[in-house]
């Protein structure tokens, strides 16, 4: 009670290397901002947050602030931003928000919401729950084992998602999107210049949308397929390893067909690429 109503602010300054451990009550969030270098967050079973940092810059300083609801970790840019590796062990229940500019971000073992953004750097997440949001301008994004809604924005990098259970939204510009073992009733994927490969079951009342301008779509539905599939292209072509009866064909570029009971709705669109349905 005292902790919940009292704001405790502790600023810790340590050059070159930091090793700090703070207690964390359930519900506390973690926010990290590291301009350059790496952020690594690993979930553990303790109700503590251990923060370590290393840098080759003698002037590098890490700032750690703790309040009743949040632990904030950031570079102290007294002499301008520098390269620093920040390594954190946090309770698996802790929601984390990680931000960097030229920063690689690696998260594992967190079973809570994750938000990670990097301008130039790769983002790799293993785990995450409820809402996971990953955003990179110039870097690859990888997510595995997420249980919940996964939202990815990637401008110039490849995206890989494996073993997802939950809604999936990806907006990419230039990069391939590889989606494997996806169990979801709501998938919305769009790209401008990238290929899209998906495998996973179509749930009975699910909605699946795959759209790209200048890439290929390869869709591998797992198990029994009950879906109403609409296909649209302009300069591309469609091929299917599943026998289909096409309706509404307009010069072979816009048509639909029903598989099984047709209960799921699937949109496959590629302006200028190949669309493949493989089973």
């Amino acid at each position: 009670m005292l902790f919940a109503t009292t704001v405790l602010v502790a600023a810790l300054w340590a050059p070159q290397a930091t090793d700090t451990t703070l207690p964390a009550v359930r519900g506390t969030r973690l926010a990290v901002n590291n301009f350059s270098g790496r952020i690594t967050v690993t979930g553990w079973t303790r109700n503590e947050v251990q923060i370590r940092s290393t840098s080759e810059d003698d002037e590098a300083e890490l700032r750690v602030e703790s309040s009743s609801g949040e632990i904030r970790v950031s570079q102290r840019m007294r002499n301008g931003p520098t390269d620093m590796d920040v390594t954190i062990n946090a309770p698996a229940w802790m929601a984390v928000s990680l931000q960097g500019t030229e920063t690689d971000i690696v998260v594992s073992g967190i079973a809570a919401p994750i938000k990670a953004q990097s301008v130039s750097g790769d983002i790799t997440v293993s785990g995450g729950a409820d809402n996971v949001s990953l955003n990179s301008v110039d870097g690859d994004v990888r997510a595995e084992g997420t249980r919940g809604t996964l939202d990815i924005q990637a401008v110039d990098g490849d995206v890989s998602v494996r073993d997802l259970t939950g809604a999936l939204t990806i907006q990419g510009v230039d990069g391939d999107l590889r989606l494997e073992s996806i169990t979801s009733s709501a998938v919305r994927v769009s790209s401008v210049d990238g290929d899209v490969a998906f495998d996973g079951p179509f749930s009975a009342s699910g909605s699946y949308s795959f759209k790209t301008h200048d890439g290929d779509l390869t869709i591998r539905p797992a198990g029994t397929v009950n879906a109403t599939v609409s296909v649209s292209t302009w300069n591309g072509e469609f091929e299917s390893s599943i026998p289909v009866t096409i309706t509404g064909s307009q010069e072979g570029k816009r048509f639909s067909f029903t598989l099984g009971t047709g209960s799921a709705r699937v949109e496959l669109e590629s302006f200028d690429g190949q669309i493949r349905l493989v089973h």
Partner: protein
Amino acid sequence: MTDRWTDRLSEYLDGDLSGDERIALEAHLRECPACRTTVDDLRRVMTRAHTLVDRPAGDLWAGIAARIGAEAGSVVSLDAYRTRRRIAVTMPQLAAAAVLLVSLSTGATWLALRPPAATPVAIQTPRPAGAQVIQAGLPAAAEQSYEAAVTELERALEAGRSRLDPKTVTVLERNLGRIDAAIAEARTALEADPANAYLSSHLANTMQQKIALLQQATTLADAAS
């Protein structure tokens, strides 16, 4: 602001949905103000579509402008352009425009709520000669709104450009170029097949992607300040 029904509103208005789908959509409309507004706008646009040239009626634009945060008076008169091209507006284009307008409404809210740049400097984005000629694409109201949103975002981005790493700027510009190329290809295709619902939807989606990338870039510039 989009859901599984957004892309099917035009089919609903055209009476192309099956009985079950129509019932489901009407149930959805009772619960979704955004789709209800879009359908209402589409109905009004359809009513005027027979006489629509390059500009929606003033009262319609006022409503759209209010939703996207633009000033009604800021609408550029298209009289000068009318003699150059007259484009038939199809139902799919109207539907795609409605989807885009909903998206732009979100974008306008984002613009209004984002913190001001530390050093706001208005830099007019140079446009190639003749760039304002109305191209094949969505109805004029949507195109105007889109152009206004892009211009505003580009202005904000230009103000914050110096705060971004040159490498990041290069990546952003390269990818904005990719999206512009995709938009141009979609326009060319739509010119060849104006009634193609897929092309209209694809064009609107690609325009949305440009808005989203510009928003992202502007956010980065703000964060770097």
